[in-house]
């Protein structure tokens, strides 16, 4: 090590100016690296970037929710209007509908994805042949972009050419092809099914990791004591998996609340606002109505709801654990 280091510090070949300044820089860095602020020094670049692209935008976004800002009406300027947007939100019927749909979307979405993900993780955790290939195949939908995932299902559910319609009619469940996305009764459940397909692997992956971290000896000891499969699952698996479950559920709920991608691709909130959720409402307000101030207010409400959910959920699950 020491000999190699010297070749860097004191080059044998007489350097030209450019090279020596490079080595001077290295020396200088090496000196800083011995100082007590080295850790902070390493963090500076990331911090500057994150300040510029997260902290500052979020801060000004929150401030913007107290102002008027409409790109289509530059004549209005950006006057401070206090809580006006929030008062308007309370009276906005679309907002209320979107809030209700968001709750349905999150509760049904997160629970269905969790249940399928957990069952899959339990199966993937058993030692069977070719399990590595199965693990890859199961994970694929999660790595697909929402645009492709959406159109794959739009193709399969097409009211005239959809293969799922055809299969359901052949099996005898349906008597004729359905238009799944343009019927207000079926639209939300259908998009939830598409998101189940795309997102259950997320739970499979992380719950599988949690399962693999549970020591084998615990199960062996329980078996010796005569515990059956169900008992072992309840007494060992669930308690030890609980921290992973809490973390994954929180992150998935955040994902479900915050990303309207799939809905933009599939329904755009329709028909008749039957698939309108808060994130999509905020996005449409910003992107198609260009009412930035109002959209910011909707987003702040989303943020507050998410924070409240996270605190309550983590508290309750912590209390339930004892």
């Amino acid at each position, binding site marked *: 090590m020491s000999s190699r280091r010297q070749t860097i510090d004191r080059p044998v070949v007489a350097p030209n100016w450019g090279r020596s300044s490079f080595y001077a820089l290295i020396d200088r860095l090496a000196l800083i*690296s011995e100082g007590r602020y080295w850790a902070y020094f390493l963090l500076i670049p990331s911090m500057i970037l994150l300040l510029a692209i997260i902290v500052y935008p979020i801060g000004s976004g929150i401030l913007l929710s107290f102002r008027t800002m409409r790109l289509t009406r530059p004549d209005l300027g950006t006057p401070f209007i206090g809580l006006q947007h929030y008062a308007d939100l309370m009276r906005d019927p679309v907002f209320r509908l979107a809030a209700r749909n968001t709750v349905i979307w999150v509760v049904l979405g997160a629970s269905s994805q969790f249940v399928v993900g957990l069952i899959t993780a339990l199966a993937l955790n058993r030692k069977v042949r070719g399990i590595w290939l199965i693990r890859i195949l199961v994970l694929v939908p999660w790595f697909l972009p929402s645009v492709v995932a959406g159109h794959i299902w739009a193709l399969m559910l097409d009211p005239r050419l959809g293969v799922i319609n055809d299969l359901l009619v052949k099996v005898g469940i349906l008597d004729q092809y359905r238009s799944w996305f343009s019927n207000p009764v079926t639209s939300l459940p259908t998009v939830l099914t598409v998101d189940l397909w795309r997102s259950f692997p997320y739970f499979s992956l992380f719950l599988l990791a949690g399962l693999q971290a549970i020591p084998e000896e615990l199960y062996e000891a329980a078996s010796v004591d005569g515990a059956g499969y169900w008992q072992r699952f309840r007494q060992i698996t669930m308690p030890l998996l609980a921290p992973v479950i809490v973390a994954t559920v929180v992150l998935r709920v955040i994902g479900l609340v915050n990303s309207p991608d799939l809905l*933009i691709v599939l329904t755009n909130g329709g028909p008749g606002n039957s698939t309108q959720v808060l994130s999509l409402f*905020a996005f449409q307000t910003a992107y198609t109505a260009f009412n930035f101030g109002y959209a910011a207010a909707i987003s702040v409400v989303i943020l507050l709801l998410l924070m409240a959910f996270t605190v309550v959920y983590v508290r309750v699950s912590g209390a339930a654990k004892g």
Partner: protein
Amino acid sequence: MGIFRSHRRTEQLMDALTYFVLGAIVLFAILPLVWVFITSFKPESDIVTATLQYLPQHITFDNYLTLWRRSSFPTLIKNSAIVATMTVVICILLGTLAAYAISHYRFRGRDRLMLFFLVSRMFPVVLLLIPLFVMMKNLGLLDSHLGLALAYSSFLLPLCIWMLKGFFDAIPNDLEEAARIDGCTRIGALFRIVLPLARPGLVATAVFVAIGAWNEFLLALMLTTSQGSRTWPVGLQLMVGEFQLPWGQLSAGGMISILPVILFFGLVQRALVRGLTSGAVKG
């Protein structure tokens, strides 16, 4: 004896159940992709039919050729590749330094910093988007590759730091200390000992960031306004909306654009899964 026999029967039952669940779940995950794959090789006459045609009458590459030659698809793919590369460079460069510092040093505010990275996921995209849009517009970065890459870093850099921290945590401190005793500077130890050991983790994280940037839709939809920097998810969506893109070509576009994802994912899935999970378990 009785106990053992019933025990074995339960085991056999569980094995059967395992195979059933795995079979069903693999079909559920893969069949939609298989269907799109088949559709992409069907001529339009086999897609738009009175009775559904499961397999193509004859296989055609026309969908791929038309999409590639007649549309802006190659430009879109090129833009996405440039933006994804820029995002990876930004995130890995800055993320490595930050994750190394967080993993190896104890300093004030360390835990709070990690918490902030997690909490940053809670911020609604639109709340971030509006000021970013105004900011990029003022800086002249709207509708540019760099502007989009910077915007992507807002959600990928925190994730990248979390993942890399997991990989750095796995490298034993002894090796670095031995190098330090031999007279290596801290920066020397970072470049000669730590980074070479963390290379699989760096590659896996880079791939993860690349896939995230390649797939992103919402930020790109808002921050790109022209052909100059538009990425493929946005372009594909607009083509569907504006020109009623035929199913065959849409399927071909889907296959082309997920090919790199599946390829990269297959290459690094082992390290990637380890990286994702180590962060989750230590949570």
